[in-house]
């Protein structure tokens, strides 16, 4: 009796995760890429993308979530994104100006996707850092939860 109830619950959660995970991924990447044009930015979009990891865990369990998302790669790419942000901030010094200077802000018209110079690149770096960091944190905490129950 109890097993049947769990099965029905699983189907509902699985279909919901299948339906909402792609929407969350696409909305998060849109918010990251359009940070300099519309409300939002790197932090918010990164957390939206990381919510897809939660949905995969809820629908398919911890083992499948760690199979689809490589945990070690997430940890490494977070530090790579931190280095990326520092590099884009150091571009000002390479162009003989001060730190965090927006050196090539006039590459396109205001309103284009590739306009506003280093703001776009820094936004992307912060979004990448937040999505990998929060996803890694969520998977780590859910692993502890899984062990406790077993």
């Amino acid at each position, binding site marked *: 009796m109890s097993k049947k109830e769990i099965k029905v619950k699983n189907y509902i959660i699985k279909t919901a995760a299948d339906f909402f995970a792609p929407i969350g991924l696409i909305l998060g990447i849109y918010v990251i890429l359009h940070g300099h044009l519309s409300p939002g930015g790197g932090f918010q979009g990164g957390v939206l993308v990381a919510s897809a990891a939660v949905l995969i865990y809820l629908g398919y369990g911890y083992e499948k979530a760690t199979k689809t998302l490589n945990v070690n790669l997430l940890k490494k790419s977070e530090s790579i994104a931190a280095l990326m942000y520092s590099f884009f901030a150091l571009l000002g010094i390479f162009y003989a100006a001060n730190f965090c200077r927006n050196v090539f802000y006039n590459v396109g018209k205001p309103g284009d996707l590739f306009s506003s110079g280093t*703001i776009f690149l*820094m936004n992307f770096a912060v979004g990448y850092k937040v999505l990998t*960091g929060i996803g890694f944190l969520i998977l780590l905490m859910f692993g*502890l939860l899984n062990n406790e129950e077993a």
Partner: protein
Amino acid sequence: MKKFLAYFSITVFLIIGCYVAKDMSKLPSTFDGTKVNVVDLYNNPEKYETNDADGVANIMVKETIDKTHAINAVTAIVFDFRGYDTLGESFVLFTAISGTVVILRNALKGRADKDE
């Protein structure tokens, strides 16, 4: 050798810091509040003229599109005018995640040993 390098770098930092502080003290202050009439602002805030207020905030509000070509003014401030702030914020997140890794790794190891 290590000690010498450490002291040398600290002295270089101190000398450059003193030089920059001396240089910056000659610059005009960005906002000293001399042009703000506080009583007038308190009595009728809707009619108060804000066009000639001095300071960095005025530049940030009025010249974001000319200076950064970014339409979203909040992103322009966070990633351009206040780039240092965002750097610190992202490294705070990095430190928090490293701390949780250190704590939760020990917990995970203990749980795995108990299961075996």
